[in-house]
């Protein structure tokens, strides 16, 4: 729906000049630049090659982080913004991952061995076309999943829905590991060695994949930010606050919940698809309850109902988890769990939420100290 005119408009409430915007968002831009430069900075500081060894590994870690951040963000769209407690988010992520992996493993080779799609000039673009088709397929599949979930959510509420969603995801999980489909899905082991097209293959060109993932995360972040800030996004929040009242002022919550579900599903599904490309695999873990729980943990850790929160949560979990593993060995989840519990008890609004609150308090304290700054 967005016209060119609106595209140039600001994301925040008031219209501002681009310069002004940049000033407001300097922190974000800086972080983005840092992330973009990260592979080179890391290689430079550690004195290693950008494409090998530890650099490569850290790029990998960051790629996972980017993907998980998007995934957590999509979850927050449901739980934080629309107030839907869903325990089935893995279905979207795993659904996306499996769709992509199955498509690349079983459909693409067959199709590309039979057909060739060329540009008028003669360039062979079969691979690209099929890849794009794969993405569209992912979107289609997870949209259907999202609609299924929202249909259920129209009928049952609260913890009952949480349980239903858990069950629906579990059903998908069971399908993904059912031996009946072992020829296609690899059952328990999952699909490995998915033939990812060379131009986006993470083992062949890790650095490129890093930027793809970064761009993906950025685009998704901007997209979600837009959605959250859009008229519809505001209605999501209203539904979270008081659904019956939303209906009484003239919105149809079923429709808006469906929108929320489908958007969250598509974003999570795309994250899943990218994850399957990144790992060149699709495994039952990706559809399992742990995957949902991860989303929940990342979201709450960072701060529910914010966009930066889930991203930060994903970062904490991926990056800090890595360090913990190094420091504490295989029992690191013990330490992580303890810290985690302490955080939940003492930082009730997540890292970001608490920071925002405190920031306000600090500001006031400072104002007080200097007699109204």
């Amino acid at each position: 729906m967005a016209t060119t005119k609106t595209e140039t408009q600001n994301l925040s409430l008031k219209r501002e000049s681009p310069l002004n915007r940049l000033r407001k968002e300097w922190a974000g831009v800086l972080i983005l630049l840092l992330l973009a430069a990260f592979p080179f900075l890391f290689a430079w500081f550690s004195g290693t090659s950008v494409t090998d060894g530890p650099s490569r590994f850290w790029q990998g870690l960051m790629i996972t982080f980017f993907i998980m951040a998007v995934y957590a963000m999509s979850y927050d769209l449901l739980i934080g913004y629309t107030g839907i407690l869903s325990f089935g988010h893995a279905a979207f992520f795993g659904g996306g991952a499996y769709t992509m992996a199955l498509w690349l493993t079983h459909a693409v080779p067959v199709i590309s061995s039979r057909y060739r799609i060329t540009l008028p000039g003669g360039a062979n673009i079969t691979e690209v076309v099929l890849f794009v088709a794969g993405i569209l397929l992912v979107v289609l599949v997870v949209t259907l999943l999202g609609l299924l979930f929202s249909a259920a959510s129209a009928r049952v509420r609260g913890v009952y829905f949480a349980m239903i969603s858990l069950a629906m995801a579990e059903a998908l999980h069971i399908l993904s590991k059912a031996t009946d489909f072992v020829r296609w899905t690899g059952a328990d082991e999952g699909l490995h060695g998915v033939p990812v097209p060379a131009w986006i293959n993470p083992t062949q060109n890790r650095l490129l994949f890093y930027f793809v993932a970064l761009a993906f995360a950025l685009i998704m972040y901007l997209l979600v930010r837009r959605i959250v800030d859009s008229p519809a996004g505001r209605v999501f929040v209203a539904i979270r606050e008081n659904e019956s009242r939303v209906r009484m002022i003239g919105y149809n919550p079923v429709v808006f919940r469906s929108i929320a579900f489908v958007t969250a599903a598509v974003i999570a599904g795309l994250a899943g698809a990218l994850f399957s490309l990144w790992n060149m695999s699709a495994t039952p873990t990706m559809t399992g309850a742990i995957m949902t729980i991860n989303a929940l943990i990342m979201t709450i850790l960072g701060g529910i109902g914010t966009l930066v929160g889930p991203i930060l949560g994903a970062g904490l979990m991926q990056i800090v988890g890595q360090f913990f593993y190094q420091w504490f060995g295989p029992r690191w989840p013990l330490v992580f769990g303890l810290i985690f519990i302490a955080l939940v008890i003492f930082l009730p609004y997540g890292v970001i939420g608490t920071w925002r609150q405190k920031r306000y308090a600090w500001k006031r304290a400072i104002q007080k100290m200097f007699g109204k700054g």
Partner: protein
Amino acid sequence: MTVEGEILLEARSLRKEFGGLVAVDDVNIQIRERTLHSIIGPNGAGKTTLFNLLSGMMRPTRGQVYYRGRDITNLPPHRIAHLGIGRSFQITNIFPNLTVLENIRLAAQALGKDNFRLFRPAGSFRQYEEKAYAVVKRVGLQGREFDLALNLPHGDKRKLELGIMLAGEPQLLLLDEPTAGMSSEQVPALLEIIHSIMADGDKTIVLVEHRMDMVMSISDRITVMHQGQILAEGTPQEIARNQTVQSAYLGELYGDLAADLEDKDGQR
């Protein structure tokens, strides 16, 4: 006194049963355009339930509701809202964690055509924001626009409740005990708002209220409900004099209200 107009809303043998309990018992009622029509009655008479039926919150067991001649009996509440019927609630029903402005803005946006714009910031739709500001001013919440609704004192919450309804620019307003839980000091301000709504000239109000002095002074018509049925209907004076009403609802304490009213009317 305002001119009575066309029939705006009509209920025909409307009935609602909860299990064995008949909360609304074959009620026929007509609301005329541009009137302030009060519904009074003892607790449990079925006033709130009647509102729930009229606004689509509940489905009647039987009977119809017509709005401007159109059958709206089984329409979902959001459709009814789109037809221009707004309601406020006896128990405050707002969006607690949103700002006052956002509460009202949402209501203003609801009936516009931009709800499904997913990729344009809500802030860029100035018209809704402007409307919201106007409503804030109208209900007297200036200066609190950016407070979270849950932090408002009770009286202000009641005002916000009203503001949410007003922002939808309904033609027909169903107000369920707007003064509930307000202290007497705050009531005049609310009366002021109601008067100003009526002064717009094109609004119709249905009011449920227990504060008799208020009801008597501002209503054009009063319907008295009792045990789900309509006990009496008429002008305030008629009602105040009605013996049945006195015994069923008003009691002795207000026996002298009728006399009181005669003077007041003169002043108005």
